[in-house]
């Protein structure tokens, strides 16, 4: 019995390693197709790799980014923006992803001017977007160790100035640690509760209620990014960056 188990384990390991080798080959092929200008082929291969890895429950910001590039070159702006957003969710601090997303957003029909926000909110978000959830977690733990160190100095060192410094540094580090934890959990929640979506239809009407006969509020075009607020049957209530809210059928958008 034990021998059988061992054999099974070996097989599993072998398969996993084979799979990774295979996907690496496909990735090389995909980027070669991209270089050649065969974007359709490149898209197909990248999608294949992503599907394989999703089955295993993992995803890669680099592959999403590359797929986004291939879609962009193939003039499928909506899909390009969707994949850039997916990559950014996994690696919020990456400047390449950010640049390409910004650039792709200049190529879409809708120019949505974001409503004015309090500048601290923007600061908060830009700091939060420096790293992904795990990195923030590690930062928080490191800060926690530093905090413990400060506590130790405060409690057991007899020198007065060292104790004072340790006390105040300890307070600052503790606050930073809390902030890092908040960022870490926010990033995690953004990935678990994916509430952003990208319009995939060339043009779609946003309505006042989840009913195709209701009044049309405004139109959105392919590539516009929206936030999902509510779900009602086959309809989503969405909000765009300028604060406008309306309902859209489920089929026209794809969740990031």
């Amino acid at each position, binding site marked *: 019995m034990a021998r059988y188990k061992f054999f099974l384990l070996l097989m599993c390991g072998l398969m996993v390693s084979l799979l990774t080798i295979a996907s690496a080959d496909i990735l090389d092929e995909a980027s070669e197709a991209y270089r050649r200008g065969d974007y359709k082929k490149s898209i197909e291969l990248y999608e294949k790799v992503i599907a394989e890895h*999703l089955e295993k429950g*993992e995803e890669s910001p680099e592959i999403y980014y590359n797929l986004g*590039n291939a879609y962009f070159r193939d003039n499928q702006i909506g899909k390009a923006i969707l994949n850039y957003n997916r990559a950014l969710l*996994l690696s919020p601090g990456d400047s390449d992803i950010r*640049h390409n997303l910004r650039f792709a957003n200049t190529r879409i029909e809708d120019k949505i001017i974001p409503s004015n926000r309090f500048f601290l909110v923007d600061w908060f978000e830009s700091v939060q977007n420096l790293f992904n959830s795990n990195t923030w977690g590690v930062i928080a733990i490191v800060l926690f160790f530093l905090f413990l160190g400060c506590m130790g100095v405060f409690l*057991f060192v007899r020198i007065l100035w060292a104790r004072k410094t340790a006390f105040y540094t300890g307070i600052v580090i503790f606050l930073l640690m809390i902030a890092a934890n908040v960022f*870490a959990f926010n990033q995690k929640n953004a990935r678990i509760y994916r509430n952003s979506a990208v319009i995939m239809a060339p043009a779609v009407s946003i309505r006042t209620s989840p009913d195709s006969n209701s009044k049309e509020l405004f139109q959105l075009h392919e590539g516009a990014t929206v936030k999902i607020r509510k779900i009602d049957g086959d309809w989503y209530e969405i909000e765009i960056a300028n604060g406008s809210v309306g309902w859209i059928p489920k089929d026209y958008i794809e969740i990031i």
Partner: protein
Amino acid sequence: MKYVRKRKTVCFFTTLFLTLAIAANAQVTFRASAPSTVVKGEQFRLTYTINKEGKDLRLPSDMDGFEILFGPSVSQSYSQRTVNGKTTSESSFSYTYILVAQKEGTFTIGPASINVDGSTYQSNAVQIKVISPDQIPKSQSQQESGQSGSSSPTIKSTDAFIRAIVSKSNIYEQEGFTVTFRLYTTLNVVNFGKIEFPEFEGFMVEEIELPMNQQLKIEQYNGRSYYTADLRKTLLFPQRSGKITIPSGRIEMVFSVPSGKRITTFFGSQEVFVDVKKTLVTNPVSVNVTPLPPDKPESFTGAVGTFNFQSKISTKEVKANEPVTLTLEISGTGNLKLIQNPEVEFPSNFEVYDPVVKNDLQITTNGLTGTRKIEYLAIPRYEGTYVIPEVEFSYFDLKNRSYKTLKSPQYTIQVAKGDPVKTTASSYVNQQEVKVEDDIRFLKTGKPTFQSRDDYFVGSLAYWLWYIIPLGLFVGFCIIKRQQAKQNANIALVRHKRANKIAIKRLKVAEKYLKEHKQEEFYSEILRALWGYFSDKLSIPLANLSKDNIEKELSNYNIDDELIRTFMEILDTCEFARYSPVKSDVAMGNLYNEALEAIGRMENQLKLKKSKKLK
């Protein structure tokens, strides 16, 4: 005096006769004149004019196509003018024939000859165009006009109209052609009213200037001859393909029309003319504009016609910050005004100014002819060897119906180091703005990193353990440390309390040695008892004890100096006695008692202090 007057009269006469002689010998001019266009079957006059009387006028022998109805009728005119007291006279004789043309076509009436004072003079030849008569018989039209004249005079559309005449009706896009608005009339024009020419939509318009004073010409149209005059002539360049129609324009004109009434005047019966206003509408004209063939070269920017292309550069060796001028010259015929400037790709660190364009154009019926000069001024900012690539200019050749591309040569410019002063003077241009990247960035290469979709480190058990375990360890460490400190404190206390007893116990052992007369053991036991006592009492480890720090610590405990001295003496005695062991039992007994007493006194003093502190 008389003589003088006589001289004067002689003078006068001589001058008079001289002038007469000059007049007699003056050039004889003999000219033939006739209308340039005549209608077949209608009479016209052929007149020969000579400024001196002649004889024997002979018409040319071949008067083919013409029949002389009457002639010659000779008339003579004489004119004399006096200007500033000077009198000149002119006389002319004209011989008029009335002819009728019998055939259509263009005929030349050869020179006629005349004899004046014995010499023969020849006239000029006359060319006459004979056109066919109007299809509507004149008598009938006259009758008609006579009939209608009884009511109110009207102008029929065949009597006066305006035609829009295009020079070509099948053209290429951007190919120039003319539109002429020509007035045809059989009536006298008295006045012009409102003039509305049509709008030329879809065309680039260039007006052709017409002479201010136009001669009326006779032209035949639809079998009738009219007086014609060009009202407007424009050069048009179609801007799009397809069928483009020039709509009709309207012009109000006042004609003088025979009213049909006749009045008798001094000269006989005459017809009365009335002024009639009429709006003439031009015919709409359509032209077929063929689009240019699709195989346009890349450098084609819409030039259509026949062109030459030349380029010139001011210098090939220049210092940095000194200007270089590149002149492109396009000459020829076509839509020169609409040509876009050919693009010149200067090296990127040249400062290029907007080109100066000079047009030297004439409007002709084929389009604009002339040259278009484009001057690019560029200033190299850094030394080096730079290449200005060849400049291409493409146009659609109307003759061959194909695109043609002309190229200027490639120029290589050597830029030497410029004057440093100049550089600083224009330093503001040296700060160049780097262009913003205008495309997406390239793929991410290398091994991709994978992140799990469902498991997150943050918030997981492992994550919390990273907090809980170190925190637990830290707290545990704190507790242990605390307890250790407490324990240490307890041990010291116990030892402090029991120091007395231990010391006495040791002294008892010393007493035993005393009774057994074991000197060495006795002294070492007393020393041990005292050292141990101080170590316990003062909480100082034995190894660190010395006489000096005991003395110091004891004074810290507020022990009497005398007692301290006693202790020191005992210690000294003991140490001394250990190495010179010849002492009596009495001395040893005294020392024993002394030590016992000193410890007792010290205990008392410490107790006293404690009770004082408590109080």
